[in-house]
Structures are given as C-alpha cells and as structure tokens.
C-alpha cells in the first residue's frame, strides 16, 4: 500500500481520536478530500521541478506512533539553546512531553494546539485564525487533515515577550519509520513582540518524515522573529510549510539555517495585507553528502509602501543539490514596493549541483524590485592572502565561507543563536575555530 492510500485510510482511525463534532473537523474532512484528489506533488509540477519525493515516500511510515518513550533532559540537552532562559514546547514522536517543556498562560498563551482546539476559551482565536492562510495545496491539506497537535502561541496586545520560545520536535526512532505532522499557530496581536526558535531532531537513524505547517499572524505593528534550525540526521526528511500573514506596519523575520537532514523542503510564504510592512527572510545552507535542500519562497505584495528582503546563501559539497525558487509578486495596488532578493551560491564539489529560479511577477509600475543570483567560487586571491599569513588551507577556506554567509547572521537578534550557528558551521566545515578572529 503506498503512503497516500495509507494516509487516506488512516484518516478514519484518526477520527476516533478527535472530536468529530467540532467545526475544525469539517475543515479536516475537506482537507483530506483535497489531499486525496491532489496526492503528493511530483516533479511534473512546476514548484517541484527540482525536488523529488519518490525516495522519501517509499518507506512504510507509521502514522500513529506508540505512546511510551523515556527521554531525559540530559540526553537531549545539547539540542536546546540551553544557555538562555526560554519557554519550551517539546514534543517526542509527536506527543507533548510535559517534563521537558515550560509553557505559560500568564498574560500570554504558550501552550498546545490540542488544548487550544479543545477548550472553549481559545475558540475565538481558533475560529479567526486556524487554517486561514494555509492554502488548499496537497501537503498543507494533508497536515490540516491530521492536525491535532503542535504549538499554540497567542500574544495579546502590547506585550513584549521577555524570553524566546523554543519549539522542538524529537523523534526517538522507536518506530521503524515515522511520519509526523505538527501543526503550529502563532498569533501576535498589536504592538507585541515575540521570538521563536524551531527545531526538528531525530535521535536515531530510523527514517522520519515531517510535514509541518506553521501559520503566523503578525497583526498591526507586531514584531515576529522566527528562527528555524535544521541540523537533523541524514535519515530525516522535513517538509516545512510556513505561512505568514502580516498586517500594517508589522515586521516579520524568518531565518532558516539548513545544515542537516536528507531532504529539506522549505515552503515559506509571506502575505502582506497592509501598508508599510517589512518582511525579511534569510537563510544559510551548508550541505554535503547526498543532501538536498530546497527553499521555495513567496512574497505577495498586496498593498502599497511595503518592503521585502530575501538573502539566501548556499554552500554545496559532495553530491548535494540545492534549489532556490524565490517568487515575488507585486499586485497592481502595491505601488512604492521595495522588493529585494539575493541568492548566492558556492559549489565546492564536481558532483554538487544547484538550481535556482528567482522569479518576479510585477503588476505595479512605481516599484523598485531587484533580484540577483550568483554561482561562483571562493576568491583565489583572498585564499592566497590568508595562506600567505600562515593560515592552513582548510581553515582559510572555512574562514572565507563563513565570511560569505556572515551577513545573514548579522540580523540574528539572539546572540546565543548566533554562537550556536557559528559552532555548527565550524563543525560542518570540519574546522576548530570560533570565527572571532
């Protein structure tokens, strides 16, 4: 039985575990129908031209994981940004792990999707925001159909959340192969500010397929700062669908750091429903082996006087393949838009490849839109400079690569994340330097 059939038939079993009378369930039933008609995306679709899911889909994933697991904080401490105080929402094999988490209802809601879906006090928020921007597209619909658990974050008006929120999904490998479908909802009301860190981590080499959907709503003048750290084992596949809906004068930033995983597909979509909005998406991708990372971004400029910035850097070694497909749409009404997009890549190996497609669709005349895209090598004269000063080749190379990706790190507001990423990069490039030369 292939995965699609399995998922469609598991839906009935899934219905036994949730409240089928809630309005949410109508959305789920609709969604499973959409998935049934559309199926998994194939390379024939323009958006999936360079990424094939075939190899990933052939595993026999269990859709409902077993309940028991015994993970202690000390086992997984290294996957946390543990040197800062933070709210934590931790899941193990898709189930909430209360002993590792630290949630709150004190002025803000940092808790679980399952309780938000069940409890009447969250009903208004759920009705207004749940599944409002995730499109009717196969993978998002699949997630919607099975949506039951994930992070629920609601920051009311005028709150500055003083510590970041960490969302970590662990998979134990108790199952031979596991499919996870976390569903996150982040609502940030007027003038509020929140920082979120998200990570997916498997603890063994059993294959994991994560199809995650995150909906983020940044209301008037809200500031959302979102960090995705993707440094999983090479048995893990991540399909991350993130949708950001922005209201006027809001600021949303998403940083994506992709170093690990077998296949990562990031669908990152921004919708600017208001004036004077700023959207920023940045990413560093450093991969090797047979890894595959696909960044698929969309910025939809709907109203005037908005800005968007995209800056993606990629370094590809061994047989790795990288894909960047960035799309900027500027509607007729969106005059005075400033949209900037850059994608710079370095190929380090003969077997590595990169496919990039920076796409602009512009319907307004008074705009400044530009995109730039380069594929190249490290500057030989810079290499020579460093070597002539006694820096070994490997370190010199690493320094240049770090410098190449550094301006993405500049806009990271949490120093601990910056340190962590620096360490991961050093590790990835096989050098033991801190880059603080």
């Amino acid at each position, binding site marked *: 039985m292939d995965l699609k059939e399995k998922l469609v038939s598991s839906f009935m079993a899934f219905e036994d575990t949730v409240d089928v009378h809630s309005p949410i369930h109508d959305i789920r039933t609709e969604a499973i129908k959409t998935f049934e008609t559309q199926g998994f995306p194939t390379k024939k679709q323009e958006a999936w031209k360079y990424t094939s899911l075939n190899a990933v889909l052939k595993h026999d994933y269990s859709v409902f994981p077993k309940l028991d697991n015994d993970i202690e904080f000390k086992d997984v401490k290294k996957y946390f940004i543990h040197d800062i105080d933070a709210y934590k929402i931790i899941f193990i094999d898709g189930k909430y792990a209360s002993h590792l988490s630290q949630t709150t209802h004190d002025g803000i809601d940092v808790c679980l999707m399952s309780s938000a879906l069940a409890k009447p006090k969250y009903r208004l928020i759920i009705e207004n925001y749940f599944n409002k921007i995730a499109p009717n597209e196969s993978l998002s619909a699949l997630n919607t159909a099975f949506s039951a658990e994930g992070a629920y974050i609601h920051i009311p008006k005028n709150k500055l959340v003083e510590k970041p929120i960490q969302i970590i999904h662990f998979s134990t490998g108790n199952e031979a192969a596991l499919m996870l479908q976390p569903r996150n909802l982040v609502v940030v009301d007027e003038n509020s500010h929140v920082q979120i860190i998200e990570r997916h981590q498997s603890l063994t080499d059993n294959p994991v397929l994560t199809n995650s959907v995150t909906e983020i709503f940044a209301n008037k003048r809200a500031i959302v700062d979102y960090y995705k750290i993707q440094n999983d084992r090479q048995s893990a596949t991540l399909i991350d669908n993130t949708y950001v809906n922005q209201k006027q004068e809001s600021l949303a930033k998403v940083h994506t750091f992709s170093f690990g995983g077998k296949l990562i597909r990031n669908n990152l979509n921004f919708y600017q429903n208001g004036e004077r909005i700023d959207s920023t998406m940045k990413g560093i991708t450093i991969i090797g082996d047979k890894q595959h990372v696909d960044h698929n971004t969309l910025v939809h400029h709907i109203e005037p006087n908005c800005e968007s910035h995209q800056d993606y850097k990629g370094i590809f070694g061994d047989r790795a393949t990288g894909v960047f497909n960035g799309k900027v749409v500027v509607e007729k009404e969106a005059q005075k838009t400033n949209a900037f997009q850059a994608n710079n*890549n370095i*190929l380090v190996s003969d077997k590595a490849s990169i496919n*990039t*497609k920076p796409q602009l*669709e*512009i319907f307004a*005349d008074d705009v400044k839109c*530009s995109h730039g*895209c380069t594929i190249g*090598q490290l500057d030989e004269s810079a290499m020579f400079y460093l070597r002539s000063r006694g820096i070994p080749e490997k370190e010199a190379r690493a320094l240049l690569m770090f410098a190449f990706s550094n301006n993405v790190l500049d806009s990271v507001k949490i120093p601990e994340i910056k340190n962590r990423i620096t360490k991961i990069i050093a590790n990835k490039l096989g050098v033991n330097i801190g880059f603080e030369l």
Partner: protein
Amino acid sequence: MSKYTEDDLREELKTKEYEYGFYTDIESETFPVGLNEDIVKAISKKKEEPDWMTEWRLEAFKVWKEMTEPDWANVQYQKPDFQAISYYSAPNSKPKYDSIDEVDPELLATFEKLGISLDEQKKLAGVAMDVVVDSVSVATTFKKTLAEKGIIFMSISEAIKEHPELVKKYIGTVVPQKDNFYAALNSAVFSDGSFCYIPKGVRCPMELSTYFRINQAGTGQFERTLVIADEGSYVSYLEGCTAPSRDENQLHAAVVELIALEDAEIKYSTVQNWYPGNAEGKGGVFNFVTKRGICEKNAKISWTQVETGSAVTWKYPSCILKGDNSVGEFYSIAVTNNYQQADTGTKMVHLGKNTKSTIISKGISAGKSQNSYRGLVQINSRAENARNFSQCDSLLMGNECGAHTFPYIEAKNKTAQIEHEATTSKIGEDQIFYCNQRGIDTEKAIALIVNGFSKDVLNKLPMEFAVEAQKLLEISLEGSVG
C-alpha cells in the same frame, strides 16, 4: 507647448494605430483549409521536392498529431484551430525574376510603404534581400556578388532542389521534428524560408536580409530558416517583419536553425513588428517561434532581437554551446503595448569547456500588456570554467501592465561562474526632473531615458538595421524615442 507627461504618452500609446496595416491584393493560389497527410504531400509536391523531403515532412506530421499544444507559457489566448488554416499560399506570378524591374509593381509599392524600397536598399545599404511575400520568395538580389564568394543564399525550396546534400545533412539537427508542438507543425508544412551557407574561411561581405510579410487572409506562415557557417566563416543575418492589419488571428510558427562550425561566427538579428492587434486586443499575430543555434569549437552565435509586434509572442532564441571555448549571446528588447503578451527569453546550454554566454534582456510594458522573460542557463557537469552573465531589466509604463521574470539557472559544475540580475522600475520622476532642470522638456527626457534603457541592445544591431529598429520603437512607443 503643453507639458508632455507620462500620462500623455500612455494615452498616445493607447490610441496609436498600427501604421503599417494595409493589404496588398495579389492573386494568390491558396490551398483548402485544414491539415492532413494529403495536404502535407500536396505542399511537398507543389514545391517539387524530392521524396526524402516528403518523407521527412510526413514523419514530422505523424509526431505532431500525437502532440498537444503547450500551455506553460505566461500568455493567454484563444488557441488557434489548426484545421481552419490554409497551409499554403503563394503569389500567383510564379516565375523568378533576375532583376527587380520584373517584380510585380504592386508588391514593390507595398515595400515602399514600409519604407524598405528594394531599390533604395540595393543602392544604399548593400543588402541582399531574399524577399518573402506569403511564403514564396519572389526576388533575390546581389546573388551574383555572393556567388563569387561561394556563398549560397536562396530560398529553402530552391536549396532543397539545388543543394540537397547540405539541406539533408543539417535540417532538423538543431531543432528536431519532434522538438516541440510548433516545430513539428512547421516541419510538416513549412512553405518556404531562407537557406544560407557560408563556405570555409569566408567572411560574408554584406548583411544578408529577409523580409517576411504575412499577406493572405487566413494563411499561417511557416518559415524555415537554415543558416550554416562553415569553419572559420562569418555571417550577419537580418530578419525583419511587418504584417498588414487583420482582424482574425494569424498564426506564425517559424523555425530557425543556426549551425556554427569550428571558429565560425553567426550574428542573427531580428526586428519583429507583426500586427499586434488593435487597442481592444482584437486581432493580431500569434508568433510561436523556435530558434536555436549550435556552436562547435571556438564558434560564436549572437542573437539580437527587437520585438515590438504580435498579439502573442512565444520565442526563445537559444544557443547550444557544444564546442569548447564557444560563445553565445542574446540581446533583446521586447516592447508590449495594449493587450500584447510576450513570453520571450533564451536558453544557454553549456556543454563544452570554457564556454561563455551573455544575456541582456530589456522589457518595456505599457497599456494592459504582459511582458515575461523566461530563460534557462544550464551548466552541465563537463562544462569546466563556464561563464554566464545575465541581466534582465523591465520598464513599466502605467499600472495596468505586468512584467515577469522566470530565470532558471542550473549548475552542475563547481567551476561555473554565473551572475544573474534583474530589476524592475518605472521612469523615475527624479530622472525627468534632472533633465527638465537642464532644459530638456519631458517628451525629450522620456525619449532619452527609454533610449538609454535600450541602448545596450540597440548598439548590438547592425547599422543598417539600427535605423529600422529605432523606427519600430518609435511606432510602439511614439514620442518616447528620439
């Protein structure tokens, strides 16, 4: 003088009628509408083609029947009914002329109206013209001068008869019959076109040029052009077209194949000004063209195009850089106005080592038009030290038009160096202010800016053609180009 603003320009663009819309009444011999094997055979027979050519056409027709019309391009139009088109039409006065005086005077008058009088061209420009009116060439000039150099420049139907070995060897090698829907259709029914062969080491002393005109109501034009530059030769080829005003859509599905052998260089320039339809978007030509060139070692192919006409354009002049050190270039200006739609760009396929490609594309959209750049730069794993530079700039006039870029970049070699940049902007008020402040009125300022915007590409046109190109830009964007 009242102030000339961008709004005035837009207004003018809206109301500007196609100046070259007229219809020459020449008795034509036209085939019944529809397409089947018999029609393909009949076309072949009519042109007194050898059997291998008929077979080749039938093969293409067979493939075409299996294919479906592509719809991935960013254009919307009423798909033509291929069974409602007449696939052959030739001017009635069949015999070939040795001198220009024998050509039907009405035809000559047509060219005069276009401002491309043959006589004038002959005297002033030194341009040999293979004039195509409705699919059959009726006049060829300067043939003798060319013959002295051993250059073959004739219509493709003549070439099939006179140089079958060359045609047989090269036709379909760059654009195979089954390449795409329109190429297959063209291969099956092409009525005429140009053939050009430059022998080894010869530098063609003049610009070779063909003027195409669509003339008969309801006849699609299926031109086939084959240019072969043998080792170490050089040729500059010009193609230009204007079409009379018509209400029903006319289909134009041409195929151009360029073959640049070792150390050869081909420069192919196009000025396209088919009827774009009226201000309501009614009528106009469908231009679905397959143009591709192949470069052997050290060869160079350069495409330059000025696209101002057609209701729908679908055109990607491409280079296959097969040989080491080969060079591909693409320079394009695409202007769309009213309801015109253009989806155009290029493909640069790097196969050989040290191959280089340059892409400069300038899109100007006005009215309610949609202008897309779609390009592919592909560096294959064995293409060491490949280099590409792409730049696509769009200029928008008015807020009802659209500019789109779909650049695909695929690199499989670590030594590749690729740069791509694209910008979209309008004519800045500060730019106009700067000009005004220096005593240049707004009309001239806009002209200056548009001219500057397109300069990179206009500069690449051969001198003889640059004048025509300027003229066409003027027609499309009246008042903006000085």
